[in-house]
């Protein structure tokens, strides 16, 4: 049984990390980061089987690839809180000489990162490659990936979606962060994508729909359900409905905070809604 008391504190602390990181450099992407905070905590604290030490090949452990690399603040915060690197390093986010680049990269040797992402639409292909390598190596662990919904406008995803189903890459669990928003506005206005779930199903994927993608308990249950369905000849996708900017009232129900940092005053408002629990970096 997950320790929801602890995990709740963690969520609050990670949200503070995200907000303070982007505020410090007056740049970065808080909206999607906040919308996926519960997902990252579920994945790293309750779902994935991970080794204590990081190595690039990740043999005999579950792997995660972040395709929409712009939500690096939540990724960095959870990796640090999980112990991949010192929490203090979060204060270097986007600064010169930092391992915490604006978008995640292997180039600076930050533990926890296995591929660069930021230019959209590439993560699913990489995850498929890593999943195939696991099969070749008789490694029964699972590969996870997270994609944004706007990101599905990139054609490479559909090459990958077709391939994963056609080749029965069934040790793969993709999650789509369906917040309905992208930089220029609502996805429905920028480019209507139709029914994402039906599209994945039509391509031959097993589709799980998570209506409350900011509910930690439901996220954990859905990810575990997906795990139980691996190895059955189909790749899995979780269509996860989230609220961009979740946990900060003025960042919710708008795309305005996709890639914008709060000023001093608004930072204080946001932090007051997310109390310090495990200690700020």
């Amino acid at each position, binding site marked *: 049984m997950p320790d929801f008391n602890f995990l709740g504190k963690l969520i609050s602390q990670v949200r503070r990390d995200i907000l303070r990181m982007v505020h410090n450099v007056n740049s970065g992407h808080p909206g999607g980061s906040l919308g996926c905070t519960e997902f990252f905590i579920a994945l790293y604290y309750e779902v994935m089987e991970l080794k204590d030490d990081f190595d690039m090949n990740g043999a005999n452990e579950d792997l995660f690839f972040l395709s929409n690399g712009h939500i690096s603040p939540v990724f960095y915060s959870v990796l640090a809180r999980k112990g991949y690197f010192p929490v203090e390093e979060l204060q270097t986010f986007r600064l010169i000489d930092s391992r915490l680049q604006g978008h995640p990269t292997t180039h600076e040797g930050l533990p926890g990162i296995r591929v660069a992402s930021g*230019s959209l639409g590439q993560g699913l*292909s*990489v995850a498929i490659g890593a999943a*195939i*390598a696991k099969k070749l*190596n008789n490694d029964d662990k699972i590969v996870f990936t997270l994609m944004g919904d706007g990101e599905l406008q990139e054609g490479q995803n559909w*090459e990958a979606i*077709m391939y994963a189903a056609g080749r029965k890459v069934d040790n793969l669990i993709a999650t789509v962060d369906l917040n309905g928003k992208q930089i220029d506005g609502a996805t429905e206005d920028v480019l209507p994508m139709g029914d994402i779930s039906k599209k994945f199903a039509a391509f031959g994927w097993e589709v799980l729909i998570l209506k409350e993608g900011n509910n930690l308990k439901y996220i954990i249950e859905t990810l575990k359900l997906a795990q139980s369905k691996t190895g059955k000849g189909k790749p899995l996708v979780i269509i996860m409905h989230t609220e961009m900017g979740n946990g900060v009232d003025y960042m919710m129900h708008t795309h305005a905070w996709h890639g914008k940092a709060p000023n001093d005053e608004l930072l204080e408002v946001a932090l007051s809604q997310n109390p310090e629990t495990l200690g700020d970096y």
Partner: protein
Amino acid sequence: MKKYTDQGKADTRSGFGAGLAELGRTNPEVVVLCADLIGSLKIQEFIDENPERFFQIGVAEANMMGIAAGLTIGGKIPFTGTFANFSTGRVYDQIRQSIAYSGKNVKICASHAGITLGEDGATHQILEDIGLMKMLPGMTVINPCDFNQTKAATIAIADYQGPVYLRFGRPKVANFITDNIPFEIGKGIVLNPGTDITIAATGHLVWEALQAAEVLESEGIYAEVINIHTIKPLDTELLVSSVQKTGCIVSAEEHNYLGGLGESISAILAMEIPTPQEFVATKDTFGESGTPAQLMEKYSLNKNAIIIACKKVIDRK
């Protein structure tokens, strides 16, 4: 003049296929991905012997590059196979982010490079691929000269850790590199020592350069012919020491002069030892349909073009 014998015309893509087949037997981590061009890339032998290590991706090159990057994370050594055009320009950003910037050990193997794929025409004749690939930090760029060298290069890059672009072609060309001329990544090969001019050639223009040197010698001009198979990292030391002796250079390649081997040479010579140079290369143009020989003649990429360039640059000394 050193003599080189054409052991029989052969396509460099078949050299790639032969190298890959050997790797299939010797290196269990080598895996091969192809975007619907098995026959053109000559990889059937590898597939027959290692079906579990072959991945037909379909006509989806972007996905192929991403999958290749992912396969390295399990310790595999992926070789991707498609035409040079679809191995580079079509998937530049995938290579840039998922492979080069991510430092992934992917071998991007590109057939049908340049104008001599012939009749298919300019849509398929990429003359910009060396430039695209050499600009990526950390990318090694190799363009072997014949069947034997392509086979040797294919085998060598499996043992090298890091992303590599390996370029070869469709037409049957002279096969003259023997076993006593070993292949070492980053090391140019002096095929013929000379004193009057340096000819630095890559790909099948190396054979054209040797033919040109023979003609020049009959006229009393002694050309040093260097086979530059690795365009990046470039063998600066060898090139500088050669032009110190000869005082002028001609570069020869089946590629646009912008972004090609010649441009790399001129950059290092400008810094180390400014030297008159002529470029045997395409002159910022697209190709067209035709036979390889017709195209090499029309676009001045053959023995005669090299001879003319050599005489011109000697006059500029």
